[in-house]
């Protein structure tokens, strides 16, 4: 008897109604967000456009020549020093995002699947160091890896080495270690969120259909959490390419990155157009790399099925 009522077609909102609703709502919604939107336009979009414009100009001491030129890009892409810095920055950020994701995944998995009642406590514990000053975290690595630092003195105290090693600090490995540590929390959160969305019964279904724990993980959990892995990789990769503090503090001569060169153009060298061209190049290259990462992870995701 109830079938009649339940089987009744549901009269959803038609397109016309939705459009009309949108109109009255959009005005209010847009008005409300416009101050923030304007702020972002003026301090984010406009500045980036200005940088873009500058990259096609030239500068002669204090005056800017507004004639269009690609000279800055020629320098940015062909001068060995900038090319090397760019390559190194890309290499470092790729390595860092690889390691942060690899190290972060098991933690995110642990918290999501075995965190139990303490899930939010674990997350809190993991995010807290992230909220402390970035500068201080980098500084602490300098303290650890320094010639007279914690690691050297500790290893000497244990009798493992006889004299302080200079290999620890002031190279790209130091930069990679420091950045991997500094961005750890940023990688855990997106992976955790995507793992939380994995329907637990799917894992049970895979097990029920004969998959062992490793297989069900590889065939169900991992592919389903791929979006989280992807955003984790990107969220670490993009900002680290342009990191300024870490290479400056622990990178030494071998660990200099593109951001340091950009800064130099706006500081001592005072060649804004070149600095702008370097910035635009960095943004473009990092976008390409991000795009490639998206494609690779998507391909891997398909492969797993």
């Amino acid at each position: 008897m109830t079938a009649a009522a339940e089987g009744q077609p549901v009269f959803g909102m038609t397109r016309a109604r939705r459009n009309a609703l949108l109109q009255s709502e959009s005005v209010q919604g847009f008005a409300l967000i416009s101050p923030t939107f304007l702020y972002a336009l003026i301090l984010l979009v406009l500045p980036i456009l200005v940088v873009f414009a500058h990259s096609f100009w030239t500068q002669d001491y204090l005056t800017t020549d507004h004639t269009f030129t690609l000279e800055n890009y020629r320098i940015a892409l062909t001068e060995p020093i900038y090319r090397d810095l760019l390559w190194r920055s890309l290499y470092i950020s790729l390595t860092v995002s690889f390691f942060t994701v690899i190290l972060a995944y098991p933690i995110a998995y642990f918290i999501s699947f075995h965190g139990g009642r303490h899930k939010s406590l674990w997350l809190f514990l993991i995010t807290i160091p992230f909220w402390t000053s970035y500068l201080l975290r980098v500084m602490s690595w300098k303290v650890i890896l320094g010639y007279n630092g914690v690691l050297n003195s500790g290893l000497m105290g244990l009798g493992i080495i006889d004299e302080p090693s200079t290999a620890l600090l002031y190279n790209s490995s130091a930069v990679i270690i420091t950045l991997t540590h500094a961005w750890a929390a940023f990688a855990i959160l997106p992976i955790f969120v995507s793992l939380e969305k994995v329907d637990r019964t799917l894992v049970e279904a895979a097990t029920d259909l004969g998959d062992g724990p490793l297989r069900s993980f590889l065939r169900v959990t991992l592919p389903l959490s791929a979006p989280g892995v992807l955003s984790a990789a990107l969220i670490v990769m993009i900002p680290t390419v342009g990191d300024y503090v870490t290479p400056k503090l622990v990178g030494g001569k071998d660990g200099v990155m593109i951001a340091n060169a950009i800064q130099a153009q706006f500081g001592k060298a005072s060649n804004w157009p070149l600095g702008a061209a370097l910035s635009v190049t960095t943004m473009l290259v990092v976008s390409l790399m991000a795009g490639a990462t998206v494609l690779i992870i998507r391909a891997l995701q398909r492969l797993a099925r």
Partner: protein
Amino acid sequence: MTAMRRFFSGGWLTVYAFLYIVFLYLPVIFLPIFSINTAPTPKFPLTGYTLKWYQDLPKTPALLDAAWNSLIVGISASVLATLLGILAARSITRYRYPGRRTINGLIMAPLVLPEIILAISMLLVMLQLGLSLSLFTVVLGHVLICIPYSMTVLTAGFEGFDRSLEEASADLGESAFGTFRRVTLPMVAPAIISSLLVCFTISLDEFVIAFFLTGTETTLPIYIWGQLRFAAKLPGVLALGTLLLVASFVLMTVAEILRRRAARRTQNEGGLYA
């Protein structure tokens, strides 16, 4: 296979998780440890306990200036970012309109852009606009990078906010302003305070943007940066750093507690994690 089973059932993972926590905390812990060590260089073995590095801090006028500047910048930036965040979060959670996602993406973009790019591009525009670099320009920059965090905290706080609560208030005879005062504000207050604390913490700790956008004034991170060149100043920097760590820790813990209270009220889990 049994090893595998144990791995996925959490045995080894638990061990790994604890090691990971150690990896996260250990470097940071060295700052407080060496800040109370008598030796001026941070190395083992520890030489003895002292508070003299801390006692020296208030005797440094430049440091006090920097602290005062940081406070001013932090308060201004957090208030402005939270105000802009409230508007945007309210708009995003309550209204549906075309371009909503794009605008949201744009507002959140500073979160994933390299800071150096943000810093130099703002620097260029500010100089072009003829703004002289000062704490004010630092505040402008900090507001931009704080808004995404403010938005994250506030949207989580607003999302669970049932629209019918405001309707119920109107239905029971309350005016629009009365509804805001008696229902909306108390409901979202924890999220707002949480946003203020988060933004203040970010501003307090932020270096790159402040470094590029400030004139002659320094903030605490800029002060620390300057001191890092002098090996002899390191213990003082460690002491100052420890104080900053403690401040961040306390602020973020309070923010988290408030966020959870807000989440419980609106029966909405998530916040910074979602």
